[in-house]
């Protein structure tokens, strides 16, 4: 029943997250950007459930708006990394020979470079914006995906059902698409879910360094960064975005596990 539990809790958390993100585009309790200097650093109360920040903005409203930005950035980052990495990994693993060696040489060089440093460099060129983050983090994470995909492809391509596909007259491209690609899904889904987590964290780190989504637009990352000077006087400012990040990661990881179990037909009940 473990697998059901994963699906239920993970599904609930992710639904909540997406619903909040969607809701924030039409309604939030207060204007997330509305400055009220007289109401700054208020503790949680009936009016401001999670208090207000250093310039008097409502934390609940900012968390809701931040859910949208953080999730969008993380999702797009994962999408870019998976698409790019899968393409590279598939081609390298299936073509082998020189193509493989060349692609993996570049890939390994990128892997040897710390992801966050690579993103920093790229952002310095691209400029700080949410699209810059997506491009930079996507590119930084793609080599990991390429490695994983290439590994699975190398083992799957030796299986006899791939040879069988050739024997019945299928083209290489069709074989790759129909028989090899689906087999790479399970390790990839697990990787993609943890990457979603890394992306949220990396976004907050970049925001902290001033290279993330520029203020005043809220993201969980820059809220956490902004709350740091008030850690002792207004603890709630750090706790709430931190808890949001943790819950989002928990949800996406549980959903990832459930998806993997579901996608692997051998795990399916008879």
């Amino acid at each position: 029943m473990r697998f059901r539990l994963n699906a239920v809790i993970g599904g609930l958390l992710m639904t909540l997250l997406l619903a909040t993100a969607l809701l924030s585009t039409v309604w939030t309790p207060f204007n997330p950007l509305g400055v009220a200097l007289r109401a700054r650093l208020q503790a949680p109360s009936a009016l401001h459930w999670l208090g207000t920040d250093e310039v008097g903005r409502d934390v609940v409203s900012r968390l809701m708006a931040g859910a949208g930005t953080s999730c969008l950035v993380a999702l797009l980052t994962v999408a870019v990394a998976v698409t790019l990495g899968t393409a590279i990994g598939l081609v390298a693993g299936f073509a082998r020979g020189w193509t493989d060696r060349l692609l993996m040489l570049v890939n390994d060089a990128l892997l040897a470079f710390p992801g966050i440093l690579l993103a920093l460099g790229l952002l310095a060129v691209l400029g700080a914006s949410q699209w810059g983050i997506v491009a930079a983090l996507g590119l930084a994470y793609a080599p990991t995906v390429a490695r994983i995909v290439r590994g699975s492809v190398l083992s799957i391509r030796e299986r006899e059902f791939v040879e069988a596909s050739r024997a019945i007259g299928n083209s290489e491209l069709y074989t790759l698409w129909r028989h090899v690609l689906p087999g790479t899904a399970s390790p990839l889904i697990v990787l993609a879910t943890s990457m979603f987590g890394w992306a949220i964290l990396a976004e907050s780190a970049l925001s902290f360094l001033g290279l993330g989504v520029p203020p005043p637009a809220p993201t969980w990352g820059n809220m956490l960064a902004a709350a740091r000077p008030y850690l002792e006087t207004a603890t709630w400012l750090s706790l709430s975005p931190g808890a949001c990040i943790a819950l989002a990661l928990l949800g996406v990881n549980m959903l990832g596990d459930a998806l993997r179990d579901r996608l692997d037909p051998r795990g399916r009940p008879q």
Partner: protein
Amino acid sequence: MSMTLDRPAAASLAPLLAVEGLRVQAGNNVAVADVSFSVAPGEILALVGESGSGKTATGRAILGLLPPGLERSAGRIRLGEEDLTAIPPARLRQLRGGAIGMVFQEPMVSLNPAMTIGKQLGEALALHSDLSAAELHAAKIAMLKRVQIPDPEGCLRAYPHEFSGGMRQRIMLAAVMLPKPRLLIADEPTTALDNLVQAEILDLMVELARDNGTAVLLVTHNLGLVARYADRALVMQQGRVVEEGPARRLLTAPREAYTRLLVEAMPQRSPRPPRPVGETLLEARGLVVDYPGRARLFRRAAAKRAVQGVDLAIARGETVALVGGSGSGKTTLGRAMLRLVQPSGGQLFFNGADITTRKDGPYREFRLACQIVFQDPYSSLDPRMRVGEIVAEPLRHEPGLSGAQRAARVAETFEAVGLPGMDQRLPHQLSGGQRQRVAIARAIVRRPALVVADEPVSALDMTVQKQILALIRQLQAERGFACLFISHDLGAVAEVADRVVVLQQGRIVEQGSRDAIFDTPQHPYTRALLDATPRID
């Protein structure tokens, strides 16, 4: 044949091993139900059964080595005076590898790849005796000589991957027999090996057992091995003992229906009228296949020639068997005839057209008309597709079929292979035999002219082998496709082949009609293959 069936019965002595009312359960499922038997000192007892019969669980229960999930819930196991079910775990560990030795099926995984042979050989002996280092070394060398390993000194320093499967199984045998155990439990010790090597290893095992007075519990699915090596046999089915008795009596005059079924599943050569030879369908002339050497740091190792200039023609509707031991190049030749491996020399003709290097026209026709059935039905079916989709896939390349016609063709093919209405299953929901039927269905759904069957039954149980061979014969009679049947098992070959081609080291050493090869083999290699084939006679 080096062994005879009737050896003096040793059963009059007090039993070495006595198993009484053994019961093994996995939760509420009973894997072994009330099994009782005994083994006399020096006796060879065979535990025979198909997959799921509980024979392996029985063997493992004796050593207290049941895999997780399985548990002994009742029964007593006595070795001599000791009750193995009541002694402390420390004492049981002492017996394992000392008084009781064991050999497992997979020689590739039962030796530790990270330890030298010398270290592994010494392990058990050092644990169970107090020999000095020099004595230990001498004992190891003597034993390696005994199992005919060339250069024993060098072998001690080598690692397992430097040896072939057969050599590794010899080394395993040496390691197990070194402490001179009183009982040897051998669980399918040669199933992964070809017949030639199998015979060598088992002959050696029996000799060593006799030297040391070791009793052997031989767990196997192969009745031919029982006939050749065992004194007594126990037939198991679904966890129960069906029949027990002297090996010869059991095989020649089985009393129970299930034993009879097993005996009848042994491949037989039934008379087969010579068929008129049709026109040539596929022909190889001087076919050569090289495997590129491994890429080293700065250069490439020399290429390995797997097939060295083979001429082979297959006529319409004919069944040609390609036989040879492992490494003879038979699988590579089969793949090359289908151009799944590109030949590096020679020519291939399909219906008279040269298709050696073409990619269009006649080659396309050839690609669609020639199909293959692989050895391992577990890896030849895409685990993510329903078997109905798997069988329908070749029809993508059949132009002008409507969806309904396609579905009808798939249903009809499932019917033909004896799996009506199973198309919605996933491969892992089917048994090995059923999977192989799906693989056959995929090969014949497009009504091919030729099917290459690469060891199609060697991964299956004996009774299932029989059914699959019968299915292939029947489908061939109905549909008239030719078949290139690749096998190391001459028993299976005798059942299906019209013509036999013997391959050794990538060359054809002998070929002829089935009866000519079986009755009057000319080449020594053919004779060796025939002698190594397990059979009852």
